[in-house]
């Protein structure tokens, strides 16, 4: 589901380098000429490349560039939005005028004094992977392919892909703030299929981060690591058993299970839903919404993590925001509109998919803090339950808090030990109810290195998730074996 695009020169020498404060000031004046009370400009230049390797050879190579401007005008809580991918005077002015339509009166906005703000650097990159010869990337894919095939004779098919992106953005607002950022991303993914006596199963492994080629030299991140992991998963799940159906004790493994936080509380704590009172966490600030073992943080500052942002898409620096502290709801994730409503400051969570989209409150890296329990004690404490290790995704209904997530690797726990592997299955629960049933939290916090992409209102953004081992006293397991 990763949309990839790609390559760019240094920060001020690309197409965005030609956009200066004077151009921005003129556009902002046009945007506000119909009486809007705030406007911002979002310039984006995104380059990307993709490599797909299957049947032992590079099948296709792709490359692309996207360039554009999005103009937003606010009038109260209402947003006017327009965009153009032609950065000519005429088209940019047209976009500014169109976005300004949201306001109905005539105004003569005063001049804006624009100041360039410095931003933090949470993902220092010496060299964009896009500047490295394509043959080096092909070599990585070949290594992943070979490792997967060599893992087990039952592996009958391997597909490996690599995508890379370099995105430069510039945000200029009518309150005089100008910020620039460059946002790298590399992703490697492997899909292996195993076959054994008429049975067939697939396995996936992959990772993404805001790094250059150094990503693949990190521990556990070599192409071989991902090739072997995809193959291991396909083979391990070949003879998986029917999953049970009904409420059970569930132990969530470290890392990927962080999808629990993303779905069970993350979306519900995005400020727009709470401003509109459509979230099941509306008016719950200061109240207990989870077991006291739970501290949930959204952290956009983790070094080179997929969900990190130096500056959000409204020009506010990425931050670490505590959402739930020892079970008490302490904060929402704010964009500009919602922060004004709540009388607080934007929390660095105003994000958008591209210049074609208006910003919304979004997650960055959403995490459950480590607890005290030894992970092996957590598994040992379960008489009969499910151990969840790997996931393909999840979804939540913001209004009532119901959420699902889909397991691709899980095991039955019997008498404190992992036994049979289980077929793909969903877990379903209700956010606040499930978080109150968290009875053990491990000391083994892990950030998932997976390629997680979050969708909201038709917009996709890269995010991170992480958690230690967690025990949930009861959640519904959606298998086929009733009773």
């Amino acid at each position, binding site marked *: 589901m990763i949309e990839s*695009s790609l390559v760019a020169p240094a920060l001020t020498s690309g197409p965005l380098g030609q956009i200066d404060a004077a151009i921005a000031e003129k556009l902002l004046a046009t945007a506000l000429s119909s009486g809007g009370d705030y406007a911002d400009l979002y310039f984006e230049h995104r380059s990307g490349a993709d*490599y797909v390797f299957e049947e032992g*050879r*590079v*099948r*296709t*190579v*792709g*490359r*692309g*560039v996207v*360039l*554009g401007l999005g103009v937003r005008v606010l009038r109260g*809580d*209402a947003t*006017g*939005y*327009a965009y153009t*991918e032609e950065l000519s005077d005429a*088209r940019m002015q*047209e976009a500014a*005028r169109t976005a300004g*339509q*949201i306001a109905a009166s005539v105004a003569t906005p005063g001049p804006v004094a624009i100041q360039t703000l410095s931003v933090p650097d949470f993902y220092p990159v010496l060299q964009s992977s896009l500047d490295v010869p394509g043959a080096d990337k092909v070599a990585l894919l070949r290594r992943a392919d070979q490792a997967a095939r060599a893992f087990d004779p039952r592996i*009958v*098919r391997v*597909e490996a892909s690599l995508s890379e992106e370099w995105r430069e953005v510039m945000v200029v607002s009518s309150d005089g703030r100008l910020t620039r950022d460059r946002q790298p991303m590399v992703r490697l993914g492997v899909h292996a*299929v195993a076959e054994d006596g008429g049975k*067939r*199963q*697939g396995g996936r492994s992959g990772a993404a981060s805001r790094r250059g080629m150094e990503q693949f030299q990190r521990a556990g991140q070599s192409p071989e690591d991902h090739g072997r992991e995809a193959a291991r998963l396909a083979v391990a799940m070949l003879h998986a058993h029917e999953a049970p*159906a*009904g409420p059970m004790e569930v132990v969530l493994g470290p890392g990927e299970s962080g999808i629990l936080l993303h779905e069970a509380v993350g979306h519900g704590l995005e400020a727009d839903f709470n401003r*509109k009172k*459509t*979230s*099941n966490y509306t008016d719950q600030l200061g109240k207990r919404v989870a077991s006291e073992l739970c501290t949930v943080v959204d952290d956009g500052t983790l070094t080179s993590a997929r969900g990190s942002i130096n500056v959000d898409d409204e020009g506010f620096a990425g931050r670490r925001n505590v959402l739930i502290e020892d079970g008490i709801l302490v904060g929402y994730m704010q964009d500009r509109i919602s922060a004004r409503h709540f009388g607080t400051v934007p929390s660095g969570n105003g994000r958008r998919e591209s210049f*074609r989209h*208006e910003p919304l409150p979004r997650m960055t890296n959403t995490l459950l803090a480590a607890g005290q329990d030894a992970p092996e004690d957590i598994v040992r404490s379960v008489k009969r339950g499910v151990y969840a290790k790997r996931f*393909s995704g*999840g*979804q939540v*209904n913001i*209004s*009532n808090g*119901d*959420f*699902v997530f*889909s397991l691709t690797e899980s095991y039955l726990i019997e008498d404190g030990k992992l036994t049979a592997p289980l*077929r*793909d*299955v*969903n877990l*379903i629960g209700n956010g606040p109810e499930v978080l109150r049933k968290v009875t053990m939290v491990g000391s083994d916090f892990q950030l998932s290195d997976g390629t997680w992409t979050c969708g909201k209102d038709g917009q996709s953004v890269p995010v991170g998730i992480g958690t230690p081992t967690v025990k949930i006293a009861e959640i*519904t397991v*959606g*298998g*086929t*074996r*009733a009773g």
Partner: protein
Amino acid sequence: MDKRPQPDPQTCQRFAEEMLAYALRAGADGAEVVVRDGTELEVKVRLGEPELVKEAGSRALGLRVIKDHRAAVTYTSDFGAAALQDLARQTVELAGLAEPEPTGDLPGREEMARELPDLDLWDDAVLEIDVAEAIRRAKRGEAAALKFDPRVTNSEGAIFGRVVGASAFASSAGFVGSYRGTNVSFVVEPVCDDADGKKRNGYHWTSARFRSALLDEEEVGLEAARRTLAKLGSRKVTTCEVPVIFSPDAGRGILGQLAGVSSGGAVWRKSSYLAQREGTAVASPLVTVVDDPLIRRGPGSRPFDGEGLPTRVNIVVAEGVLRTFLCDVFSARKLGRKSTGSASRGVGGGPHVSTSNLILRPGTTDPRDLEKVDRGLYVTDLMGFGFNGVTGDYSQGANGFWIEGGERIFPVSEVTISANFDDLWKGIDGLGRDLDTRSSTQCPSFRVAKMTVAGT
């Protein structure tokens, strides 16, 4: 004042032909170019006030070149002649990184479409909808929902949208063509407060290529309110195995997943449980599934496919028997057969198999009669992913109604339904006559004789 011109197929086609010439001049053995131009208007009203007005146009060009049986794909939004010539050269160079794969060569000249059907996909009246009208209609629809019942206490808003697009495709295998289309849609999503402090949301929507085919916005608002109110008091049910009835809205997802595993791409990649099942029973004899790109005014209709081949009606499943996989040229060659004209082509990637108007043919049963079971679950909507195409394992979150003695007794939420896909499709024992034609994946209500429902 200088305004961006509306999308025009002839203009798109000229750019496509221009780019094709540049690619061949740059040394490509073969090339394909897709050009898309579109405009969108989206208006969202919430609690009677405009919340978002978005209006813009966007265009892009995608190029695929073949050089010495090696393929590269690129895209750009810069249509300047110099930029296009540069891109042509870079793309040919990029192909040198790929490895020879003759299967990926362009289709044969004899396969290309010669005459393009007029599918009546364009409505001038859609272009006439301006911001003021869109706001007025959205307000009217939302107000109908809010006024319907005092228990409707909030709203996720009402969205009125229109898109207008033109698309052209040119291939050195001997094709150039273009077409244009319009679409207009409206959705209302009210919110109610439930007794246990939870909120309940529901929605109703309408969508059509022609403005005159759109449902009245008040009607949409009222139905949205009814659907939302019906969810008040939702609860779980005890884990059990019962008949499950899918509404057309919920069934659409299941049908889409069947299309995924019937695609030639999934089959040759050994990623479909249906591989090697052609000619055998894969569903109940009640089930006939067709992919029909030639429906006039159809939401997913297309006059030619993503490789310039003629489009045609394909029967995927006939009375339960799997007749054919849907193929593009590449997957067809991998499977040793001919393309079914089912390729689609985005700007950012190469051709791939996709459905057009995918239809589970309706039966003759009154949909209410499908609910005549002792105990069962009627599903209104599904949540999450939970389908493994390699094994056919299926499990999703579900909302709907619990049925006893043929009557809906209470609303249900926070349960999952699961089955192996093979059992699910073979277990269909009732098919409604209520085909829902709003989207490009269309099905009637249908009943599966037995699935596992997991709850308390």
